[in-house]
């Protein structure tokens, strides 16, 4: 095969058995790779009723057919599993160099099964695969783990691992690769921890074969030029990173503040990308074959919050900033570094702490519940201590480690959790931006913005400007972006390539790499197929249309101040049209005709 390696690597940690099997060409053609092929394998092999943290759940690492090639900014991979946070299918996407290295080692997917008796790590060197004991690494933070595994294997090994949060089964634990990149959402790190798997180290030296090198070269040059010439893909993201969104979202009054009590944060500029660039940025950083370089290598020298690492991204600056009522960028950086070291998802962790602050403000919880902490909005030092306790599951951190929904529900007030399907929603207030609310509610992995990034048309005007406060045309737009996003993820492409190229360029790249002819319509159809397959899985788990909703605060309580004052989400107007346009019935169930059309029947 071209593009695909044609091989799936399977490791059963219960028995220690390592096997290889052929990737079926029809599956590859229909589901592309990464998120798509992972969903295909999970839905075939894992019962939706499985305990997400039990040995019968499977953990799949999957790069895409473009990963490991010179296609610009397309070296990503997904981690697919049943999420312990949501119960839904998880597909957490990450950059860096780990995904391409798996391809170089010869694998389209690494499937982890069972549960090791003692802590182990996996060492993959091309065809050699070894399960090694990891007792001396267990308990270590992500940077130390990465270094220790490299020392024991190969100094050039690409390492994906969990920190203490994953070991302690925090439902917000992520999997970190290349030390600073995160497969962040849905608690995939807890699944790895439950399997007693501390790390996966990979070295590969095989090429990714390209079907039509000449056509591929032309497609790469064309895509690279379009991204480079685009003012956002070519310059804006490198200069300011994603955190530049802080001021934009705040100026339109849709910057969630103090656990979504408001949509405007007066001190936003202090935590935005402009401040980060002028005060803490050491250099921008790109992933494998990336021409965009949105990553931020940063440093804080103030002894109170000293540290060095990567980030914060926009979501993180928002979460530990405005959502917690904090305007101290150094504290935000510190919380970000800690999350990366502990192996915690920054969005869910920050939102869960904001939820605790909100409940504290309303006297639902008191120092008696929090182990003596006064958890007030705006208290940066307490916020940072809570991050640490969460990652280690110590004290009140043990409660926080299971996410905001379980925390708020425990105290009888689930409505304080700003989550969808128990996963925390990110940094765009759906009361002021109507399409993103529909996206949050229908996202197959719960609260998430990148499943259908409506902010591009609704706020940034890319490719065309839509009125963010109107519901008109939003169901169609959300569906198109969800399908495109699923296809992008499945190829291994970064979402930010869409600031420069679209489905047509992606189809040209994919066709020349794989030798399978894809049109842009084929690609969008593959995205729709993946979306419906994920939906089928979630319905089988027991999720229903009642779960396609938003917190009542966002549906009923208007934004309190700022330019979007008085707005609420009009999700209820949009959802029936969304179902109908998707070819689903009124209960959000794909019709037999739709499933047949997508070759899913």
């Amino acid at each position, binding site marked *: 095969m071209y593009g695909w390696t044609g091989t799936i690597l399977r490791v059963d940690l219960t028995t220690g058995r390592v096997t290889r099997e052929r990737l079926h060409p029809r599956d590859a053609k229909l589901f592309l790779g990464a998120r798509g092929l992972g969903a295909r394998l999970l839905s075939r092999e894992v019962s939706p009723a499985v305990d997400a943290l039990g040995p019968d759940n499977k953990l799949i690492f999957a790069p895409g057919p473009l990963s490991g090639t010179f296609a610009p900014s397309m070296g990503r991979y997904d981690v697919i599993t049943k999420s312990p946070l949501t119960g839904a299918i998880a597909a957490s996407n990450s950059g860096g160099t780990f995904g391409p290295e798996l391809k170089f080692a010869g694998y389209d997917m690494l499937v982890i099964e069972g549960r090791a008796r003692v802590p182990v790590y996996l060492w993959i060197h091309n065809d050699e695969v070894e399960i090694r004991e990891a007792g001396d690494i267990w308990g270590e933070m992500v940077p130390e783990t990465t270094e220790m595994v490299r020392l024991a294997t190969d100094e050039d090994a690409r390492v994906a691992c969990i920190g203490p949060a994953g070991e302690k089964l925090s439902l917000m634990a992520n999997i970190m690769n290349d030390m600073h990149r995160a497969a962040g959402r849905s608690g995939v790190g807890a699944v790895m921890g439950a399997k007693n798997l501390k790390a996966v180290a990979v070295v590969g030296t095989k090429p990714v074969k390209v079907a039509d090198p000449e056509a591929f070269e032309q497609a790469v040059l064309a895509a690279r030029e379009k991204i480079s010439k685009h003012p956002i893909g070519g310059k804006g993201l490198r200069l300011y990173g994603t955190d530049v969104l802080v001021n934009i979202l705040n100026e339109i009054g849709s910057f969630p503040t103090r656990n979504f009590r408001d949509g405007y944060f007066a001190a936003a500029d202090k935590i935005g*990308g*402009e401040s980060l660039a002028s005060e803490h940025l050491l250099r921008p950083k790109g992933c494998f074959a990336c021409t965009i370089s949105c990553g931020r290598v940063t440093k804080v020298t103030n002894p109170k919050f000293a540290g060095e690492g990567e980030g914060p991204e926009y979501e993180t600056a928002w979460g530990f900033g405005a959502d917690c009522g904090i305007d101290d960028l150094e504290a935000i950086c510190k919380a970000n570094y800690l999350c990366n070291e502990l192996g915690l998802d920054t969005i869910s962790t920050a939102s869960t702490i904001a939820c605790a602050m909100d409940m504290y403000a309303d006297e639902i919880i008191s120092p008696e519940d929090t182990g003596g902490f006064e958890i007030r909005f705006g208290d940066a030092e307490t916020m940072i201590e809570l991050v640490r306790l969460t990652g280690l599951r110590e004290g009140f951190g043990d409660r926080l480690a299971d996410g905001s929904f379980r925390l708020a529900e425990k105290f009888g007030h689930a409505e304080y959790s700003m989550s969808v399907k128990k996963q925390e929603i990110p940094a765009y207030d759906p009361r002021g931006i109507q399409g993103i609310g529909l996206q949050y509610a229908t996202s197959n992995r719960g609260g998430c913005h990148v499943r259908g990034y409506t902010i591009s048309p609704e706020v940034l005007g890319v490719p065309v400007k839509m009125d963010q406060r109107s519901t008109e045309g939003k169901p169609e737009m959300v569906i198109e972006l969800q399908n495109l996003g699923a296809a992008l993820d499945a190829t291994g492409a970064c979402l930010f390539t869409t600031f420069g190229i679209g489905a047509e360029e992606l189809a040209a790249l994919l066709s020349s790499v794989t030798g399978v002819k894809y049109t842009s319509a084929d690609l969008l159809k593959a995205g729709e197929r993946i979306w419906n397959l994920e939906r089928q899985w979630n319905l089988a788990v027991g999720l229903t249309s009642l779960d396609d909703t938003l917190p009542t605060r966002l549906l009923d309580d208007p934004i309190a101040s700022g330019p979007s004052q008085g707005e609420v989400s009009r999700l209820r107007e949009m959802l029936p049209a969304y179902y109908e346009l998707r070819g689903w019935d009124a209960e959000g169930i794909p019709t037999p005709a739709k499933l047949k059309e997508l070759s899913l029947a």
Partner: protein
Amino acid sequence: MIIRYFAMLRNVTRQNEQAWNAPVSSVRELLEELCRVYGTEFRQWMVDENGNLGGLSIVLVNGTDYRHLGGLDAPLQADDVVAIFPPVAGG
């Protein structure tokens, strides 16, 4: 009128915010005037590859995108707050 600048425009104008007292009646007039005052460095972020003014940037008038207020002809008042962003994004 208050004008707020963001990202690269802060380097070009050497300020985050400025009070604007010269009379301008529309977004078009304001952007043309700013391009004249701050020159090609400012203009490069305001004009897209097809020569369209405002095609690249995000211009908000009191928190609402000018494209939903009548486009370049959107009227401006003396007490408006105008926020101007060059083409930047995140996710």
